[in-house]
């Protein structure tokens, strides 16, 4: 089995049993959303993470919840905490350090919520919902100079036209192309670190170091 097949991205809405799969948190169903999956007009990403009242911990990536959003005034540190919805507005460049090594710019809003573990369990539910892109809606993988915030690289993914099945391939290609290119900022001269994908399975030693770095 190839390593890439560990990621599930299935576009077919009607592969969900309308009534049999009525509860996306059901242990037999939630695995279908371990990557991202479209259902009707929305895209869901569902993860079981170690969640208590104050913190979120991803067993593969460590402490979770810190996020950066880029606004006209600079970088904003956002903390996604349990028991609170966070909405990243459409068009806001954002990234989760140590989780994916690029700025994600989505034409659609992203809604996050983390629910603490049920009594007697350690793993709660982490939910990401966004609308399914249609037509010309899509997203970008972008890199800003970490020293001066100049946009130095951007790859557009026409999600509405190509569909969710192509997302991870596009992400991998964008990261590879970025890493092959010149990462020195033409404005301030800073040499920026390598980018890395959301999935950790293909991390080389260099990519692991980049993931640790930012």
């Amino acid at each position, binding site marked *: 089995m190839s390593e890439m097949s560990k990621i599930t991205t299935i576009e077919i809405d009607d592969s969900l049993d309308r009534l049999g799969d009525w509860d996306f*948190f059901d242990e037999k169903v939630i695995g279908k959303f371990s990557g991202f999956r479209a259902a009707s*007009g929305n895209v869901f990403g569902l993860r079981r993470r170690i969640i208590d009242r104050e913190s979120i911990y991803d067993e593969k990536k460590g402490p979770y919840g810190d996020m950066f959003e880029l606004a006209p005034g600079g970088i904003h540190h956002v903390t996604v905490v349990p*028991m609170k*919805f966070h909405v990243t*507005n459409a068009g806001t460049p954002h990234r989760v350090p140590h989780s994916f090594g690029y700025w994600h710019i989505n034409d659609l*809003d992203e809604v996050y919520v983390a629910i603490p573990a049920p009594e007697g369990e350690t793993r709660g*539910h982490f*939910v990401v*919902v966004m609308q399914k892109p*249609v037509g010309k809606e899509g997203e970008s993988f972008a890199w800003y100079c970490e020293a001066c915030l100049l946009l130095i690289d951007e790859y557009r993914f026409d999600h509405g036209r190509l569909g969710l099945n192509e997302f991870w391939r596009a992400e991998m290609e964008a990261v590879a192309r970025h890493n092959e290119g010149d990462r020195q900022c033409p404005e301030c001269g800073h040499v920026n670190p390598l980018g890395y994908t959301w999935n950790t399975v293909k991390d080389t030693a260099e990519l692991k170091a980049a993931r640790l770095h930012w």
Partner: protein
Amino acid sequence: MSGSPGPILGFDFPLDAPNGWHEANRYLLWTGHFALDAPPVALQERIETRTETLPLRKRSLSLVPAGTPHRLTHLAGFWRTSDADLIVLRAELPEAIYLSLYVSSGPLHHADRIAWYCERCGNELAPWSYDVGRYGALAFWTKLIEPVRAFNAGEAARTCSTCGVVHPPAYGFDAGEDTDGERLARAGW
């Protein structure tokens, strides 16, 4: 001259805030919480001519696809059908039951409709449509009390034209605005 407040960068809505709606661009989110012994809020859907009541679980995440008539027992005393998906998140924690609704609005969300179904024959009663494209997704939830009260105003509106059965009184969405009669209706179904 005072400076611009700048763009809204994002939204944060605590689940334990007072029950209510929050607008976040295309999403309209409702956060609510109930006592553990409160009347159960169960999601119901009309599948063809029958009503399906989804089981109550301590945790659940359900999608009501656009076009599916649905309601929530003891919370929404009407059947809603929308152009937009609805997502229902339920989490029972030691102190309360938390319920969140996501209305997935946007340019394809033109109308929300409400109606009732005859309890004997399933005939649709008193259909009402709201122009969400013009007035917005949030306005529907406050405006719907008008057709609810018209439905409750007399037995004629609640009487099935096919089989003659009278539907029980309805109630709106915001329990804080219930009349005595609506409060009684909310307790009943």
